[in-house]
């Protein structure tokens, strides 16, 4: 075996035992996905359309292992009770698998706060509006009969007596309060008479009261989510585009004659919703 043969054999061995495994290793390593911090944005009220969108995004996060954590970004006054509860329940499934962090931009009020309470950490801006814990409902009118509407019972048209509607609202409230107790628990620094007064606080006060954890940005929320998920060098991805949901909303609020949206829901019902006292002029 001459010298050139020996050199060739070395080269061949090198290729066989080093380069090929290295290339193979590199190729295989690409199968390890880059961790994604999924971002779910809610910049509207919570109602059937937005709730279904959120649920699709949550489902995507559950089904895709590369999504290691989720950040909910809120600018929402809350919404209907049932849609809020629907999202809340799906969120619970997600949280059992992956950390979820809230970043409050403008507002996480009422139902939006209900969802926030079911996350691992809450960031708010100093002037974000946070809280407004409670339920608001429109009582039905006292029943009366209408000539052209025939029903099979006194409350078929009206749903329920006013008194029992009032009591139902109280029952729904219990769920909200318990959700806050479970979500925030020992972090709360004020008593129930303050926390459940229905007040809406600035981000600064919210952190003092333990309603929120810290003042911070959306980026802080991504980092916190990554920390809780024990990932680094992640990529923040909008789950709406990944899950392919259409985010252009329907009409939930009353539209003024000039087309301006008023902060009042367009139908009577029971809501976890912040309705500001100032009318939009």
């Amino acid at each position, binding site marked *: 075996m001459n010298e050139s043969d020996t050199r060739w054999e070395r080269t061949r061995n090198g290729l066989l035992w080093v380069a090929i495994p290295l290339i193979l290793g590199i190729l295989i390593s690409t199968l390890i996905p880059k961790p994604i911090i999924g971002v779910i944005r809610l910049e509207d009220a919570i109602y059937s359309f937005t709730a279904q969108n959120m649920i699709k995004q949550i489902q995507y996060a559950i089904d895709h292992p590369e999504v290691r954590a989720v950040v909910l970004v809120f600018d929402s006054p809350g919404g209907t009770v049932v849609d809020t509860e629907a999202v*809340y329940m799906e969120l619970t499934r997600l949280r059992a698998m*992956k950390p979820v962090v809230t970043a409050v931009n403008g507002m996480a009020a009422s139902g939006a706060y209900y969802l926030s309470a079911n996350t691992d950490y809450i960031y708010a801006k100093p002037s974000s509006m946070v809280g407004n814990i409670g339920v608001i409902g429109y009582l039905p009118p006292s029943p009366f009969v209408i000539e052209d509407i025939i029903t099979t019972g006194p409350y078929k048209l009206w749903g329920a007596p006013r008194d029992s509607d009032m009591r139902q609202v*109280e029952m729904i409230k219990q769920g909200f309060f318990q959700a806050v107790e479970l979500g925030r628990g020992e972090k709360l620094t004020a008593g129930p008479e303050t926390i459940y007064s229905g007040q809406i606080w600035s981000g600064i006060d919210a952190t003092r009261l333990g309603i929120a954890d810290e003042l911070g940005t959306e980026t802080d929320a991504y980092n916190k989510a990554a920390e809780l998920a024990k990932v680094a*060098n992640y990529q923040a991805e909008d789950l709406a585009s990944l899950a392919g949901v259409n985010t252009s909303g329907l009409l939930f609020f009353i539209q003024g004659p000039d087309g301006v949206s008023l902060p009042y829901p367009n139908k009577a019902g029971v809501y976890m919703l912040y309705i500001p006292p100032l009318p939009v002029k």
Partner: protein
Amino acid sequence: MKRSSIFTALLILILPILARGLWFYRGLPQRGEIATPDFESFAAPEAPLNKTAAKANTASEATGGIVLLDTIHLNQFNPNEIDALTSAIQERGGRMESYIDSTQLEYQLKYASAFITVSPSVPFSTNEQQTLKKFADRGGRILAFTDATRNFIYYDSTSGNPLAYGDSESANSLLSAFDITVNNDYLYNTEKNEGNFRNVLFDEFSKSELTFGLKEVALYGTHSVESLSGMILLRGMESTLSSGTDAHDFSQGGAALSADGNVAAFGDFTFLTSPYNSYTDNATLIANLADFILAGSRNTSLQSFPFVFKEKSVQVFLTSEVTKTTELVTALSGLQTSLRAMGIEIEFTDIRPRSGDAIVIGSFAPMDEIEPYAKKFDVTLGDGDFITTAEYGDVGRYGTGILLFDASDKGNTLVLLADTPEDINSLISVISNGSLSACLTGESVAVCSVGVGGDYSSESTDGEATDEATPEATPTPSG
């Protein structure tokens, strides 16, 4: 050699995988079960129905009386909302009558036992305030209901802020004379309540006929009410707070009673409406309210004329001086018609009545039949040109009629005195017309111009008298 090569190759293979894995992943997050609210355990608070109290409401003693219901202050309620109270009043023989014309208030309060206003939005006028004050001072009962849930919402033109104009200010225009204030707030209790924080439970009561038999009542969106000289009827728990201060104030409650016990104010009337009238002891409270409203010991005086009799019949007694001339019979028939319109029959008697309601008709001539009345009211009769009265001094005997009113437990007696048969007839006509506007009128003595033979004009008397409408048929006022 081969084994080490394989080991090296494996190491080289794993290295980029490990590097990439560690670049992205720093451990395995521990996720536990996430606790959620126990939704199935939640229940709506039950309505505190009290069937016993509802039954108690029906066991009432008939006392009668007319209750004026205010409808002219843009009152924010429907009459059917106070059906429970109306029924309780009717079960006790009382009757509701609407107050629809402020010019008639003084007249209506002459025969009414009580006045009720519910959630007024327009303040009471000075005249109304004074008239109602006099009414309560005479023993009439006033019941004012306000309600924190009844507001006119309007928007400030500058800021756009919604503003609520409630009923407290208007109610206070009436209640301030009785040292009762309804605050422009609402009471709430987030710890212990009746189904909602604004439905406040009261279990501490001041001793009063209004709170008799109460253990717990609920008001549904109530203003706080206070009275320095009177008493707070319903006191809230310490956890009951005012929306005005978010604090508890021991001087405030859900209802207050004036110092003289004739005026009560409530911060809520939703408790009168169905189904809330049957919750807690609210039915008992409503029964107590009906008793209260009909139990006023209103002092009858000439100020209450023509509603000065208590009975359904009045005995008419003519003294021996008075002759039943044709003119007198005509005058008496007019009196009979007038009293019948008020539901009162007259019965003639030859013996001076000792009990029951009576009208005694006589002349200025000193007579045994008249003297007891004249003496009682310091009126000196005689043959001179003047009759001396304690209240008005000497009054000319010619063309003058004098009314004396004696109210007692045995019955109310109206004595008509004049000089001549013509004057007597004229005086009876004044009475029949149902107005003393042509008379100087005190509590028990009135001096009237009857316009015959004196210095007074008969035309003015008649004119004044006919301005007043003939009283409508009205049950005999109580008390």
